[in-house]
């Protein structure tokens, strides 16, 4: 397998009034076309790690490398946890913004924008400003913007958190289809173990702050997976295993009041 | 206001002093040489001697005028202006009561034109046709008298010259870079112009025997308490007579006093020409009518039609009393 993302001994400390040790000694390799799910207690540094892969923050120690097939274009696009869409752009303009950094024929842009607005059920609202959208609709705009770019590496920070269960399942399938078809690399932060098992090749479990990697589990189910695997005993077993590890972490951090 | 409001009913005693101490407030446009007299009269205790307690406020003339007309100021020291005439015609109780300084023959102040305009030739008023000419009061001041006479001598109408408003100091750079062709210039600006040879003085600022500044009184002194006004003018005259004759700026003692009051270095003052001050106070003949004629040449300046009489504009009782005492 070819390495796509190489995270080596990364640490991150936020300086300031009261400094926070967010990550400590994180080493992780993501292969080309791998779908990695990242789980861990709230505040453990998942978003921080994604931001560093994206090049938005610099680590305090270690290096993060992303290897790109394209000689020019940056390989990553991201769905932000807080959506980060622009209030001064309409839904359509927000999605189109994803292409601003890339040289793409106008017709191609139009087609992709239409496609993703359609898939995310936003067509009717293409001319609406974010202020007139519901929470879930804003999140969908953010998802559409990142997916429309079709990047080599897709970084998704709890992308489906604000969506209803049904839509979530639809989009999970969309995402899997996209991934299988183009073999993109995905790093996917989620709080749902079910979602992680359903989607991921690997599940990386992080400890409470300062975040370290405490488990890196390969998901044993074959592709394509159907939602039916939820009922398989291995599924419950795997979920239980991850669960046990997480519980310790959360308890530890809650008891210390130290999240 | 009532007599009480303005210094009470003090009258003149036998010694030429007021019987009671009286407070007066007068305004001057700035602490400069032409405005020297009231400042120094106060410093040299000429007002004190006559039982007057004078406060001097620095205020631009335009700002001071309403205060004078409403009795909030007792007098202002300034030049005659269109505003005064219009106000008088409109019924304001304001009069000229005494002349102030006169410019000496040697004074550098006057009408200057740029060397660029002359271009080596002798000055002709017609050279100013269609040119810009700067005056700090625009066309509304007393300087227009000499200027219009100058133009007339060359057969040029006042409407053939564009008169722009610009402070005298600003006129110096403007003359030098050719954006204006002439200006009314006061000392000490002439030194700068002469040094650079950038402009030439072609006429005095005032007709022969015409005063530069004028003292105006408002209703408080004209009506309510004329005795205080008389004593005030007399105090000024005695300042003129005792201290401001001859080349007083050459006198080390007096110039030191003056420098202290004006907050200017002695050396600066000594470069200036001493202004002249009259020992007998009186206004030139036809003072009012001449001003009116000059200003009438512009259609929109005087807001009344019937010419004013001298008595409407000048109140001589104060000068007359002062000349006696």
């Amino acid at each position, binding site marked *: 397998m070819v390495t796509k993302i190489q995270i080596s001994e990364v640490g991150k400390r936020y300086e300031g009034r009261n400094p926070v040790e967010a990550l400590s000694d994180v080493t992780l390799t993501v292969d080309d076309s791998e779908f990695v799910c990242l789980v861990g207690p709230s505040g453990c540094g998942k978003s921080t790690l994604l931001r560093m892969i*994206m090049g938005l923050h610099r680590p305090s120690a270690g290096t993060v490398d992303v290897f790109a097939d394209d000689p020019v274009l940056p390989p990553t696009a991201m769905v932000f946890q807080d959506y980060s869409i622009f209030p001064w752009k309409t839904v359509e303009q927000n999605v189109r913004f994803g292409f601003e*950094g890339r040289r793409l024929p106008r017709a191609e842009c139009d087609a992709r924008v239409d496609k993703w607005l359609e898939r995310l059920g936003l067509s009717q609202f293409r001319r609406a400003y974010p202020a007139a959208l519901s929470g879930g609709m804003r999140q969908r705009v953010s998802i559409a913007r990142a997916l429309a770019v079709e990047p080599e590496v897709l970084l998704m920070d709890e992308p489906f958190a604000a969506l209803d269960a049904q839509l979530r399942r639809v989009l999970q399938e969309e995402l899997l289809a996209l991934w299988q078809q183009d073999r993109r690399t995905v790093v996917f932060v989620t709080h749902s173990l079910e979602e992680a098992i359903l989607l991921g090749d690997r599940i990386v479990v992080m400890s409470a702050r300062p975040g370290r990697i405490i488990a890196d589990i390969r998901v044993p189910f074959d592709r394509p997976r159907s939602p039916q695997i939820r009922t398989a005993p291995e599924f419950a077993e795997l979920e239980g295993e991850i669960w046990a590890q997480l519980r310790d972490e959360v308890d530890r951090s809650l008891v210390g009041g130290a999240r | 206001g009532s007599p009480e409001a303005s210094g009470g009913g003090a009258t003149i005693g036998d010694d030429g002093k007021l019987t009671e101490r009286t407070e007066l407030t007068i305004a001057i446009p700035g602490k400069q040489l032409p405005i020297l007299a009231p400042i120094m009269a106060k410093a040299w205790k000429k007002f004190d001697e006559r039982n007057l307690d004078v406060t001097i406020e620095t205020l631009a003339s335009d700002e001071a005028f309403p205060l004078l007309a409403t009795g909030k100021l007792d007098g202002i020291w300034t030049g005659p202006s269109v505003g005064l005439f219009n106000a008088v015609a409109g019924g304001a109780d304001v009069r000229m009561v005494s002349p102030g300084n006169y410019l000496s023959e040697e004074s550098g102040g006057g009408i200057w034109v740029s060397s660029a305009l002359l271009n080596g030739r002798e000055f002709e008023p017609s050279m100013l046709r269609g040119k810009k000419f700067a005056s700090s009061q625009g066309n509304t001041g007393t300087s227009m008298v000499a200027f219009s006479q100058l133009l007339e001598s060359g057969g040029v109408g006042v409407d053939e010259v564009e008169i722009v408003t610009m*402070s005298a100091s600003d006129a110096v750079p403007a003359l030098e870079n050719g954006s204006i062709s002439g200006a009314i210039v006061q000392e000490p600006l002439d030194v700068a112009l002469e040094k650079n040879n950038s402009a030439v003085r072609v006429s005095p600022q005032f007709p022969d025997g015409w005063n530069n500044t004028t003292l105006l009184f408002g209703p408080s002194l004209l009506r309510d308490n004329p005795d205080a006004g008389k004593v005030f003018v007399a105090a000024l005259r005695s300042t003129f007579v005792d201290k401001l004759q001859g080349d007083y700026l050459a006198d080390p003692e007096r110039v030191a006093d003056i420098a202290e009051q004006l907050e200017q270095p002695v050396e600066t003052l000594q470069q200036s020409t001493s202004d002249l001050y009259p020992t007998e106070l009186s206004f030139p003949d036809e003072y009012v009518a001449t001003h009116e004629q000059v200003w009438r040449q512009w259609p929109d300046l005087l*807001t009344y039609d019937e010419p004013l009489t001298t008595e409407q504009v000048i109140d001589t009782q104060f000068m007359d009393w002062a000349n006696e005492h």
Partner: protein
Amino acid sequence: MSDRTTGTGDDGRRRWRVQPGQQERNPRAFARRRRLERRLLGVLVPVVLLVAWELCANAGLIDTRFFPAPSQIGSTAVDMIGNGILLTDLTVTVRVLLIGLVSGFVVGTVAGLLLGLSRIARAALEPLLSALYTIPKLAVLPLLLLIFGVGELPKVILVGLGVFFIAWISVLEAILDLPGAYGEAATAFDVRGWRRMRHVTLPAVLPQVLVGLRISVGNAVLIVVGVEFVSGDEGIGYRIWNSWSIFAADRMYVGIVVVALLGYLLSLLVQLLSRVCVPWAPSTAARRD
């Protein structure tokens, strides 16, 4: 604040009720009424003040030499319009004003963007510019006359300078206060340079820049009038100064009123501009009703 009304329920408990108000029942009529109300009030207040002034003047309660009655000012205004003075003055003033305003604002905005985006430029120039801000413009006039001569240019420059400082401060502070999330989203999609400016930075600071513009417009009017006070021979400012120095208070007030109206119209224009340029901002809706 809250849209709830309180009452008492059948069982004596306190009942908090939300129900449709006028606005919900008939949005159009409501909007129309609000608009009418707003316009009426906006006109009424000045009219009442003017009437009070007129009455005081007629009753001799105020000194009409200095505060002539509005009717008198009005008739003077009619004269001045009739003989064309007012129009000439206005043309001169508005010309200088607009050229100065636009150029000062554009240069100031660019400077603000530069200072906001480059740490080095900020460190090097902000202290200097802060100090230059308060250099009295009128004291600089002689120097401008020296360099540029008499005429329109020095006035335009003075107006431009006045606007420039307000513009760069507004833009700089707006950029520094930008929420980081916007910049991160731009970086994440590799939008740089001019595109980043156009799609992210400019729209994000636009609301505050327009506030700066509104303040600038007023200041520019003040400066152009102030400069015409001390120099020149035309323009509304000259007219005000000249009228006052020849003791024609009614003419002066005509000038003052014209300047006030000019300022009001320009500020309306800026508000209109805000509505068009910033359709997403809350204030756009707030102003409408």
